[in-house]
């Protein structure tokens, strides 16, 4: 899937394809999703990405919202 990454939102469980062009930083991906690095962590193969690590087309990542409700 050229230009897009597969993102799974946790804990919601919803999956979506996000346009990442030639690759975006994890920080930028969170911004695209209306979040920031205080609110969520991007995981690839279960390991956290640094804010400047790139998410590339074809990647499968998890965006884990770390803020619990209530």
């Amino acid at each position, binding site marked *: 899937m050229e230009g897009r990454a597969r993102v799974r939102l946790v804990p919601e469980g919803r999956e979506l394809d996000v346009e990442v062009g030639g690759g975006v930083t994890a920080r930028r991906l969170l911004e695209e999703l209306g979040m920031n690095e205080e609110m969520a962590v991007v995981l690839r193969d279960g390991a*956290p990405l640094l804010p400047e690590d790139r998410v590339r087309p074809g990647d499968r990542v998890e965006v884990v919202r770390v803020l*619990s409700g209530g």
Partner: protein
Amino acid sequence: MAKCSVCQAPAVAYVRVQRRYLCRQHYLEYVEAKVERAIRRYGMVGRGQRVLAAVSGGKDSSTLLATLSRLSGRLGFELIGFYIHLGIYDYSEKSRRAAEELAAKLGVPLLALDLREVLGMGIPELAKTSRRPYCSVCGSVKRYVINAAAVELGADAVALGHNADDIAVYNMKSFLSQDLEAISKLGAKTDTVEGVAVGRIRPLYLVYEKESFLYSLLSGLPFLHEECPFVDRRQLEVELKEAVNRLEDKSPGIKMQMVTRLAKRIGDYPRPRGEVSRCPSCGLISSGGECSFCRITRRALGRPMGMEVRRRIRALAAEMGLLRASQSHS
């Protein structure tokens, strides 16, 4: 690739407030040092004391129990975990498994109370029959049962998994409604009222919610990353948590400033008025007359159940050999 600022190993996390990268090992040590600093700075627990850590199966419980378990030897306190099965369908089953696996992995004794075994019902039925909101009943029940367990086990302190984000949000919520008495309870520790209430400590007071998540993840600890089905994401706490983290993103360190200053000024907030008294039904703390747990259970089941809960916990503790010598005959 970014390198750890301490040992030059590949970094797994960036600490924005300190503008440095850390590898897995040094990130875990960074969080443990925060917990140790909070325990020492706020005088949370002394040598030879018994700490009962309330665990729910979530990430904060994992971080709480693991960091306390690592520090208990050095700081010389005894640690026991406590879990309440709230009877919230599949969610409670999953959280029970996570709490049990966590305690087993850390080698910490875990006392688990199933609410349904004592009351014949869990939170959903209790809320329906007492005609009160789920979250309010759940909060009252947890507060009561955790305190009852601490009293029965002769614990010197109850450790709760509230992190810095939780404290910042409770503070803002109480400030918005000018409930200054509620703010007075948001310090790093609360006092013991002899015989009726065990003081609470918050070892994760200086740990950000994201740090707590990363600690559990990087430690490979079991935890449940699922929300209670009754959480309403439109509720004020959720909105405030996002708002405070938008501020933190713009001004790194602002959350830490809020909680450390709050801890410093906690004595300036007015304490709740009224005398602390003893519930005539169960003998534990009450703000006058019967305690809220005994009132809720009287309404739902026709009789107050505080004493039953206390008996059940005592029996479980005796089975596990956790009663203190001075208590075993009383």
